[in-house]
């Protein structure tokens, strides 16, 4: 008799498990359908964005194109628009999808050399700014510095006495983030061991002072994440503290230049409350 009772319980448990499995299977199908619906919705949104952006001006063309009358007019129009924005970032950062660093043989030095070469060759470095002088661009990656443009630089020029560059471009890598914080901790520990510093004096302003970049900025005002994935890939974390983050994927924006323009437009209307 007890054997029959056990058999009944086992059979009920098996039926329940089977029923649960069927329910789980149906739920899994519904989830797949939800994923598909989401992908279709996102693709449709991207298609709509792309269609709208066809009518916009191509910023990449304006930056790199030759100096024709039509392009000069469009550049002036763009410059007027940027000047009219109620607020503009002083320090602007762009996060690009992982490219050179993780590729075989890639390194930040390679990126630096490539970008320096392109800057020297580009017409942007020859253009005259609003104050009537040719734009001077400083490119640095923490180890190397190079200047492009400007009409008053030669091999003997002492750059430390020169006017600040019109544009300062810093190349950052993962090394500027977590490893830099670890190096700073080692440096402070070393100073503590030598008696030049006490651990009690290590606070936020002390750390912030050590993390200022070569151009004298603490952190970017605006970070453009030019990637389809909405994730920050090892960007220096300290520098994100009060940055506005604008994400646009390569599938949605016509070009990096257009993405930057959208980011500036979005930044123009933000309200910073600083905790209040």
């Amino acid at each position: 008799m007890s054997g029959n009772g056990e058999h009944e319980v086992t059979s009920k448990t098996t039926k329940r498990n089977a029923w649960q499995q069927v329910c789980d299977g149906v739920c899994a199908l519904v989830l797949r359908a939800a994923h598909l619906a989401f992908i279709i919705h996102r693709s449709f949104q991207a298609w709509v964005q792309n269609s709208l952006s066809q009518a916009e001006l191509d910023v990449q063309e304006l930056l790199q194109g030759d100096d024709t009358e039509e392009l000069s007019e469009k550049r002036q129009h763009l410059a007027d628009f940027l000047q009219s924005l109620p607020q503009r970032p002083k320090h602007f950062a762009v996060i690009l999808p992982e490219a050179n660093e993780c590729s075989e043989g890639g390194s930040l030095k390679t990126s630096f050399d490539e970008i320096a070469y392109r800057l020297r060759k580009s017409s942007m470095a020859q253009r005259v700014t609003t104050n009537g002088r040719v734009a001077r661009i400083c490119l640095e990656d923490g180890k190397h510095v190079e200047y492009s443009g400007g009409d008053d630089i030669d091999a003997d020029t002492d750059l430390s006495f020169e006017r600040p560059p019109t544009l300062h471009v810093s190349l950052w890598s993962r090394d500027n983030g977590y490893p830099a914080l670890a190096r700073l901790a080692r440096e402070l520990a070393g100073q503590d061991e030598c008696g030049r510093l006490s651990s009690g004096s290590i606070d936020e302003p002390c750390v912030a002072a050590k993390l200022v970049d070569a151009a004298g900025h603490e952190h970017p005002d605006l970070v453009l994440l030019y990637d389809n994935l909405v994730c920050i890939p090892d960007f220096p974390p300290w520098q994100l503290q009060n940055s506005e983050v604008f994400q646009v994927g390569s599938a949605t924006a016509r070009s990096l230049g257009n993405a930057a323009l959208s980011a500036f437009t979005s930044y123009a209307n933000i309200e910073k409350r600083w905790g209040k």
Partner: protein
Amino acid sequence: MLQLQFQSWYAYAGLTVLILAYIVGNGVYGRQLPLPLNKQCAAVCIYVQGKVRLLAVRVLRQGPIPQHVGFIMDGNRRFAKKAHMETPSKGHLAGFTKLTKVLEWCNDLGIKHVSVFAFAINNFNRSAEEVGALMGIARDKLRDLAENSELVNKYGVRIRVVGSRELLPADVRESIEYAEEKTRGNLGMTLNVCCPYSATDEISTAIRRLVEDVEKGVLSAADIDEAALEKRLQIPGPDLDILVRTSGQIRFSNFMLWQSAKMAYIQFVDAYWPEFSFYHMARILVSWQLASRDIEKRKLAGAVHDRLASGEQLRNSVSSSDTYCGDRTCE
């Protein structure tokens, strides 16, 4: 006869739709325009909503579930203004109610760690009245959560309060200690309440703790690396999977920077925190599930790159010591 039957079917269908529309409309919007059977309709709507939510949770759990989710609960005061509430603190109370609901959803979904940005260090710049009201809410609600909530009593949620608590009034610190002590042995979901908190303060405190440990001889300066620094953070792990900020603002406001910059999936939701709904949560989860494979691939690629880079540094250091030995006359 057949025609009459069809006409009856249409009549039944139309009547059913009307009744359902009345129940839903009265239950959802009945507060603005009270109609007969308002309470009963609201009860039906809440019951059905609960069942639909449970079904949605079951569906979502068939896919990957994040381990750690962070919320920046922004927009309470603007919600209070929008809803014509008397004071901004009513908005904060509505925000707390929403927090308890969100914690229930996270618990149902099987999320193991939830971190919420309750109060920033620079929020002390607000008016004394508002800060006082917020401290009062923190003191009362933390105690209430630890004592009476189903989440703690039934589901074993563990409460941790993270931040520079020496800046808080004594009565709030007491409530914090009480809540932490009462839930210390709980094995369910971990709730990290960041109050008062800033990520830069967390990182600089971790650096200071590292240097203090070097002073005490726990480790040497040469042993300091990212892992040692991360262990001394107030929220050391697991890695943050999703970061959600409400109210449409697109910044981190100094919240969990170390954790967020490690490929956390970031979602800026254009709704105030008290208006954050299960629909928003489900949408975020579905989009994270779709992106999770790409995120894992990128994390693996980053880990491989780090190993190669550290291997390169080791090779360089070994080769430089060979050169040094080669320069001297070696015995």
